[in-house]
């Protein structure tokens, strides 16, 4: 029940806001922030109570909803969703504080933000296909409004594009869900949409798996977004208000990767293995393409948006490494991207508030008037390009080392992303923060104020915390990832189907010493 409470608390807060007169701007803001903050702090207790030794669902709650169709209100968290859940509550509170300066329709804005919070949280806890789909579509609406009402000059175009892209993908997913519903009914005689039950009992041949996989793939790949389904993202980011971008990058994109982990991998493991080359190469193209295009952007937000395409390519690659390293790396990289990119959007938002432009050519030499801002920007920028000791590195390294075990060529190309990342971030940083301060409009810019400092400091702490003590976070993944990895292990699907033992040596070599086994394998 606690989980349900946490999920619907923001929505309740949104209802409460309805009754506050719109003149009381301060009260509205404080109530919204209070609700979101309380939600975040309460959600932290989940981390404390979470049992890291099991891959089973925790904090589970289930009650019949539409009995005749076998639909339940079933929620729960496991290692894959726990931190995403907490990240969402955190970023909701964070983005409300980041939108302190919103003037237009403040009340409606805060209502939309809180409703969005509930929608996003629901996606991560839903353990019923129907419920999942409801939340999945529900969170679209507030986000659509946030872009479409509070966005920039081309906001309608961007909002519609965002909505249509996602909706097209999810419709195919709905078809797949209905198909699965009938398959399960045929196979087991049970009418159910329970995700856990289906994951355990779904048994379909390879070609059906592939069709179903493709339907889910499209929905999630658009959300991630993978190359070439990414073009909605730069538009949406550029037009969205700062908080919208933070939520979009921090949480909404993660729904795509979460979908892969929750559905595609466990439901269609064989299809995943078969389609690995395609998805692997699409991810690698995404990494390189995103970085290259980011390098030549003229708008700061667009640059960060394209860098997201690149970063999410790493996450996808980790997921499709099918081993514990890659999966852990993908999950951690999810979190890292949520921290680093959100912080980047926040920082870009800060100078946008001051100058009402995000064109790189308008800036230069900002380190002089804004030294504190420069330091924070530098730290976040370096974390985003994966400097060791900061968060991005741990995730990237795990992803790459995981992929290297599965397909060294993919890993090699993906690793070249580290060079390109340095190019686009440093070049941007140089043009914005360094050089002479030539534009007189920039000479007297205010440095960060208290509210902005309060916003960015936790992000910086997280950057280093995850970089140096990632175990605080990755230990929650362990059990679930091990379970998932055993399910999608490529060895299960090789002709002959011999299973790997724990050390990665094939059983046929069991009598040989470990070193020789490794050599023999490397020669194959």
């Amino acid at each position, binding site marked *: 029940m606690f989980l349900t409470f946490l999920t619907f608390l923001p929505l309740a807060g949104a209802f409460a806001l309805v009754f506050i007169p719109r003149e009381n701007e301060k009260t509205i803001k404080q109530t919204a922030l209070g609700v979101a903050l309380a939600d975040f702090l309460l959600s932290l207790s989940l981390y404390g109570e979470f049992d890291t030794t099991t891959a089973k669902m925790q904090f589970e709650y289930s009650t019949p909803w539409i009995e005749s169709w076998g639909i339940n209100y079933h929620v729960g968290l496991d290692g894959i969703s726990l931190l995403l859940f907490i990240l969402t509550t955190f970023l909701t509170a964070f983005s409300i504080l980041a939108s302190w300066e919103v003037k237009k329709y403040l009340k409606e804005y805060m209502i939309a933000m809180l409703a969005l919070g509930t929608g996003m949280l629901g996606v991560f806890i839903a353990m019923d296909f129907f419920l999942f789909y409801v939340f999945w579509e529900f969170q679209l609406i507030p986000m659509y409004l946030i872009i479409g009402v509070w966005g920039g000059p081309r906001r309608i175009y961007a909002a519609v594009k965002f909505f249509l892209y996602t909706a097209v993908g999810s419709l195919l997913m709905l078809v797949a869900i209905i198909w699965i519903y009938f398959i399960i009914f045929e196979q087991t005689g049970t009418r159910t949409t329970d995700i856990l039950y289906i994951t355990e009992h779904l048994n379909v041949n390879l070609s059906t798996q592939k069709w179903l996989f493709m339907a889910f793939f499209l929905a999630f790949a658009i959300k991630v977004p993978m190359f070439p389904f990414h*073009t909605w993202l730069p538009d949406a980011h550029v037009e969205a208000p700062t908080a919208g971008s933070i939520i979009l990058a921090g949480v909404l994109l993660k729904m795509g990767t979460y979908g892969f982990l929750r559905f595609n991998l466990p439901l269609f493991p064989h299809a995943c293995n078969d389609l690995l080359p395609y998805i692997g190469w699409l991810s690698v193209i995404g990494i390189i393409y995103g970085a290259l295009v980011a390098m030549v952007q003229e708008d700061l937000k667009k640059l960060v948006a394209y860098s997201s395409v690149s970063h999410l390519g790493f996450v996808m690659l980790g997921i499709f490494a099918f081993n514990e390293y890659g999966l852990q790396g993908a999950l951690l990289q999810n979190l890292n991207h949520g921290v680093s990119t959100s912080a980047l959007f926040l920082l870009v938002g800060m100078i946008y508030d001051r100058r009402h432009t995000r064109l790189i050519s308008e800036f230069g030499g900002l380190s002089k008037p804004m030294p504190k801002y420069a330091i924070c920007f530098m730290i976040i920028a370096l974390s985003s390009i994966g*400097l060791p000791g900061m968060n991005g590195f741990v995730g990237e390294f795990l992803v790459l080392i995981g992929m290297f075990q599965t397909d060294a060529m993919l890993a090699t190309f993906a690793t070249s992303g*580290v060079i390109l990342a340095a*190019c686009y971030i440093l070049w941007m940083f140089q043009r914005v923060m360094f*050089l002479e301060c030539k534009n007189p409009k920039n000479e007297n810019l205010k440095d960060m104020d208290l509210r902005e400092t309060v916003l960015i400091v936790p992000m910086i702490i997280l950057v280093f915390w995850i970089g140096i003590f990632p175990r605080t976070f990755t230990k929650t993944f362990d059990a679930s990832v091990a379970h998932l990895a055993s399910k999608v292990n490529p060895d299960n699907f090789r002709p002959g189907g011999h299973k790997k033992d724990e050390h*990665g040596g094939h059983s046929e070599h069991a009598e040989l010493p470990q070193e020789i086994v490794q*050599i*023999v394998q490397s020669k194959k």
Partner: protein
Amino acid sequence: MLSLTWLIPMYPLVGSIICGFYGLKIGKDKVAKVACGSVILSFLTTLLVLGGYANLPEGESIYEQVMFTWIAAGNLNIEWGYQIDGLSLVMLMVVSGVGSLIHIYAVGYMYEEYSFYRFFAYFNLFVFAMLILVMGNNFLMMFIGWEGVGCCSYFLIGYYFDKKSACDAGTKAFVVNRVGDFAFLLAVMYIFKLFGSIDFSHVMEHAATTVVFESEDITIITMLLFIGATGKSAQIPLYTWLPDAMEGPTPVSALIHAATMVTAGVYMVVRCNALFVMAPITMWIVALVGGGTALFAATIGTAQYDIKRVLAYSTVSQIGYMFLACGVGAFTAAIFHLVTHAFFKACLFLGSGSVIHGVHGEQDMRKMGGLKKYMPKTYWTFVISTAAIAGIVPLSGFFSKDEILYHSLMDGNIMFWGMGVCGAFITAFYMSRLVIMTFHGKYNVDPEVHPHESPAIMTNVLIVLAILAAIGGLLGIPIMHGAHFLKHVLAPVLEFDLATAIDHSTHVLHEQGRHAPHWGHLLEHHEEHNVLTEVLLMGFSLCVALAGIATAYLFYIKFPSWPEKIMQTQGGFELVRNKYYVDEVYDATFVKPTVEGSYILWRQADAKGIDGTVNGVAKIIGWFSQQARVFQSGFVRNYALFMVMGFIFFLIVAF
């Protein structure tokens, strides 16, 4: 005392945080105390740890201190751990020792700067990263330091961030280094795949029995590692960032771009000696690249006028010698030269800094000359270090360079030796040219500038470094065999049993039913250190060095018109002075196509291709909808028409 190990990198880290956050509040003097104090404390702690290491029980040669588990997933378990052995101790002494001296010097050099605190925050942070680099007990710990020093180098090169050239140089250094890091990362992944661990102790111990001698795997791994080293240590083909890095303040050039960071690649190769020895092909390439760089960079050094740039090319060239040594398997000689180079090159850079300070920021040697009488202390320390780098007996550089040349002939071949000797000649030449153009000859300083000797805080450091540069050779006097201190210290690190490796590899290949090459000859021992040959070679290299100095004397003192003449008649000179146009070639082949290609990707592929398709689909759907509107016009007569038509159609189909 070994338990204090973890403290060594902590002091500079704390120092950096204090300087960075409170530097403006506590004032310059306190910043100076904190910054220098923290590095000196590291040095003292290193001494304590050294004491503890000396008392290790017989048979133990490595002390590992594990702080906590850093990254863990599946079978991968990477610790935040430090490793103390002979090699890391030597490096620790150099980094914290020379680091302390340069910090003290920098207090004097940077005192007028407003951003004094920022400089020392970066500088201390650099020392922290460098210490982590040499202390880490696994490849990833090393990589923290490896990228950390690169990042600090980026900050410090771009210290004068309002200068475009400085920013460009910083970015260039970072990006070029990242190319090397890319290879390094791949190597780490490959190592994990083969060994199932990335701990140094595990990998080095099992190298002989895990991989096959000369196999593809080990060759790829070592080549990747070496590419990583060429990035960090500025070797061909990734050396171009180092000369540009001279945009940073001079103490930075001394500490980062001469004494410590750029030698990290050498340290890494020596640390991984067990892997490199398993891959003779890579070893040959390492020697070739090292020797080639030593010669190539030296030639560029002869034609530069910026005093720091000459030293930068000299650094590239000297590190080339270290790799040459690694490539022929003389790892001790490489570390020996690394240490002596740290002394004399730090002294040279700081000396050049003292000159630049004395002539108010001028770096062009054509606008110097005759400075000897204005700054005698700088002059004499500079001359001693120059003699050391040129290889004049009995200064440190003589012994270390000679050991490299000896091994490149005995363990390598005549070509490697030839490269080294030619490089030595050119080194002696351009260094003497530097001294003559700066301190001797005609006084060319701008009349408004009044040259003066630098403050004591700077010259005292120069004197200490000059003494070290002079006597550093004691670490490894070659003839006194038992007394070769470095060899003794490094022996446990370099212990490698080739016989086992070859036995094992032959066995594995036979198991697979493949033919094993004949490796027996590799095990035949060379003649033990041949004293006569060595003395002859020593004499020869001394003559070469003297010849280089004499040539410079002829060119720049005796017949000052000669350089002019050569410049006019020899087309090759332009080529050398423009650094063989390597920067321009890289620009045209890598940088420009990437940037321009990216624009095409964005404007054509992204905006027109992908987005165009999507919008096109939307338009087509819109068009169809437009057509469909006709059916819902709202006029009853239209609906009646459709009904009649439908009815007729139905009749036709039905009958």
